């Protein structure tokens, strides 16, 4: 029989695992920035052209490349954390990312790939915006009803996937992706109906959400929604670590057959998890629909309102290793990237899409710590595979 490890050793092991996670993440981020820089240089014909004279005039080529990269990245940094209002913009961008990241992460813990946060956020934003611009309700109640509508819409959209998975075994990756396309089709159709389209307009745009249903502003773009997102993270952490439901979610994620044999209802857990995940992603849609934009009024509902939050959420959840605290930090990081990306686009004329590349690269590197260890020699990596989805934790 194995002796139980002394407590201090376990603590030390835990601390060193956390330390390794952080250093790997940091190294992955740096590597992603380097690859991003190479991409920027290659994609700029003027800068790349100078590399023809690399050996005759190395200063010219390297100087041009340095100017290009440093302008873009410093704009990115300044736009993310450079000033109080930049920080406020970062929190505004992070709020929906945290919610949608929790949606993906929670499902990961049950062994489910929720690629459908996008569609769930779209229907959430539709429901919340509709309540926001068409129901005449008193101030606080209006906001609460609008948020609840978004949560319920998202929960239904996600719950259907869980139900299909539990009843028929249909794989959730395919079903959620199809549900994404159906959700955007639904939104496109809704914006042509009288219930959603702004009177007197022929383009697909909704009326403005009433002030009584808007998240109150705190400082510039920082609004109450950010704290709602943090609260959601706390709730998810509590559910996962302290509740019976969370225990069965983790058990089903670790081994559904064992969980079933132990008497847990795998099907019900799948449905509930997907519905909860849908509600969280719906909350991300609510943030997009009811969160005040730069001018203090929420952006009216249109086809691109939620952006690509559902797909960014996958990277947020993976980077956060499907743990609520990790997801909050990952959400803030990618929120910063997104807010800074806008600054980078306007100041340095570098397309916002670069941030998508950076996100995907960070996660790719984090997923392969051995590769990071090969590229960054002083890091020691664990042998074998790592789990970013936390399903076997």
């Amino acid at each position: 029989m194995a002796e139980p490890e002394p407590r201090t050793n376990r603590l030390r092991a835990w601390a060193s695992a956390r330390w390794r996670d952080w250093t790997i993440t940091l190294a992955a981020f740096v590597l992603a920035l380097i690859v991003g820089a190479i991409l920027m240089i290659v994609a700029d014909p003027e800068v790349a052209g100078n590399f023809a004279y690399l050996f005759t005039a190395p200063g010219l080529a390297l100087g041009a490349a340095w100017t290009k990269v440093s302008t873009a990245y410093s704009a990115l940094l300044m736009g993310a954390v450079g000033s109080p209002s930049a920080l406020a913009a970062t929190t505004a961008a992070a709020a929906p990312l945290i919610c949608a990241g929790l949606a993906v992460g929670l499902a990961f813990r049950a062994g489910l790939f929720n690629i459908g946060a996008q569609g769930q956020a779209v229907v959430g934003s539709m429901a919340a915006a509709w309540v926001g611009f068409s129901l005449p309700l008193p101030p606080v109640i209006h906001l609460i009803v609008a948020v609840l509508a978004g949560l319920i819409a998202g929960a239904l959209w996600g719950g259907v996937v869980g139900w299909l998975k539990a009843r028929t075994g249909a794989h959730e990756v395919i079903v959620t992706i199809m549900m994404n396309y159906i959700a955007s089709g639904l939104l496109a159709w809704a914006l042509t109906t009288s219930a959603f389209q702004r009177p007197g307009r022929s383009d697909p745009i909704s009326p403005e959400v009433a002030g009584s249903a808007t998240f109150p502003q705190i400082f510039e773009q920082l609004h109450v929604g950010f704290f709602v997102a943090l609260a959601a993270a706390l709730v998810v952490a509590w559910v996962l670590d302290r509740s019976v439901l969370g225990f069965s979610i983790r058990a089903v994620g670790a081994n559904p057959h064992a969980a079933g044999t132990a008497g847990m209802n795998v099907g019900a857990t799948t449905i509930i998890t997907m519905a909860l995940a849908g509600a969280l992603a719906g909350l991300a849609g609510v943030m997009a629909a009811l969160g005040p934009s730069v001018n203090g009024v929420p952006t009216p509902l249109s086809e691109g309102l939620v952006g690509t939050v559902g797909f960014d959420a996958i990277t947020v959840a993976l980077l956060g290793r499907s743990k609520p605290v990790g997801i909050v930090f990952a959400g803030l990081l990618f929120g910063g990237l997104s807010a800074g990306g806008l600054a980078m686009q306007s100041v340095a004329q570098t397309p916002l899409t670069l941030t998508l590349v950076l996100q995907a690269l960070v996660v790719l590197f984090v997923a392969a710590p051995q590769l990071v260890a090969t590229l960054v020699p002083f890091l020691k990596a664990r042998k074998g595979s790592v789990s970013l989805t936390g399903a076997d934790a």
Partner: protein
Amino acid sequence: MSSVHDAHVPSLSDAPEQLDFTVVESRDARRARLSTGALIGVVGLVLAVLVFSTSGVARFALSDAFADVQLPTIELPGAPVVAVCAVLCLLAAAGFISGRLPGRWSMLAGIVAGLAVTLGFLTWAAAGKDLPFPVANQLAGTVFTATPLILGALCGVVGERSGVVNVAIEGQFLTAAFAAAIVGSVTQSIPAALFAAVLAGVLMASVLAVFAIKYLVDQVVLGVVINLLASGITGFLFDQLVQPNSRVLNSAPTMDPIPIPLLAELPLIGPVLFQQTILVYLAIVSVVVVWFLLFRTRWGLRVRAVGEHPEAADTVGISVKRVRWQAVLVAGIFSGLGGAFFTVGSVGIFSKDLTVGNGFIALAAVIMGRWHPVLAATMALFFGFVVQMASQLQTLNTPVPSQFLLMLPYIATIIAVAGLIGRTRAPAADGIPYTK
């Protein structure tokens, strides 16, 4: 982490409940039968309601208006045909739900229901319209639209038979489409564009291979991240490089249909199968090639061995990792060709995220085609049919909003995946990295 296509393993609690039939039906089979019956029943009821909004004659044109040999245009009385189709669906549903259909009959009932649904809805849509429903166009368009799906499905089949789940078909498509557009624009040559597309497909496949096989990253996570990466890189290069110089970099030539002498003259079959682009012919040939590779060559046997039982394959001296690498790279060739369809194969110009989920529909075709190249290609044709029907119906001015018609392929995918998946089984080692 579960693999992408969990074969359902019955647990101890799935004991047979009913013993009054000679053949005991498992709970899963019963559930699948009942849900199929319910689905067909609902569709039958919808058709029954539609009978009341059908008036006039539905016409189906068998030949293109410009064809040399004109086949007759079939005229069907609208309401009676829809009514008959509704009744057939309801009968099939009743057959499924009662559970009294013997094995062969239930398959027949399924086919009848499928045909009745298609005919019923098309008749409803075409009834009373000035224009006949163009059957030849529909079928030719089916083959054309299904081309990337067939190639994507072949990519999935080859990779997954070796045990590497490929959720990244979409990303491979996107990169290949981008490469084909750029190289096609610069060189104005279709072969060069195709070559670039294949190269891009193989390159993305090698990213999949290196992270899945060497670094043991969870393959579904990896696929999703590769898709994001492909979307990001093509999007960034498009914004930064292509958009400002679209005249030079985004004006690829498109493929012209190449009629095959004599065969192209055949009525109905000619335009459907023998007046297509080179890519369509390549896709059809590829199905045969993949079938031959997988089931008639030593290499194919090895691929299937490492996908089913890598330990056993390793014991007899097959290098599991090498075979998987080869399979994933070969698969990349097909996804590269499939990606070329979206630019040089059809419209010529690249736009951001232009593959709109086709890679995932191809993945659905892989699963529904039970990881078999010919069956998967058949499923791809089914999806091609639905996509093409959605766009044909748009021109017929049905009362259904066009946004709903555009959703049809996605809804069909969900129904197909939900209805059929319980009866499929993935290669045993699919998605499981091999470590000694």
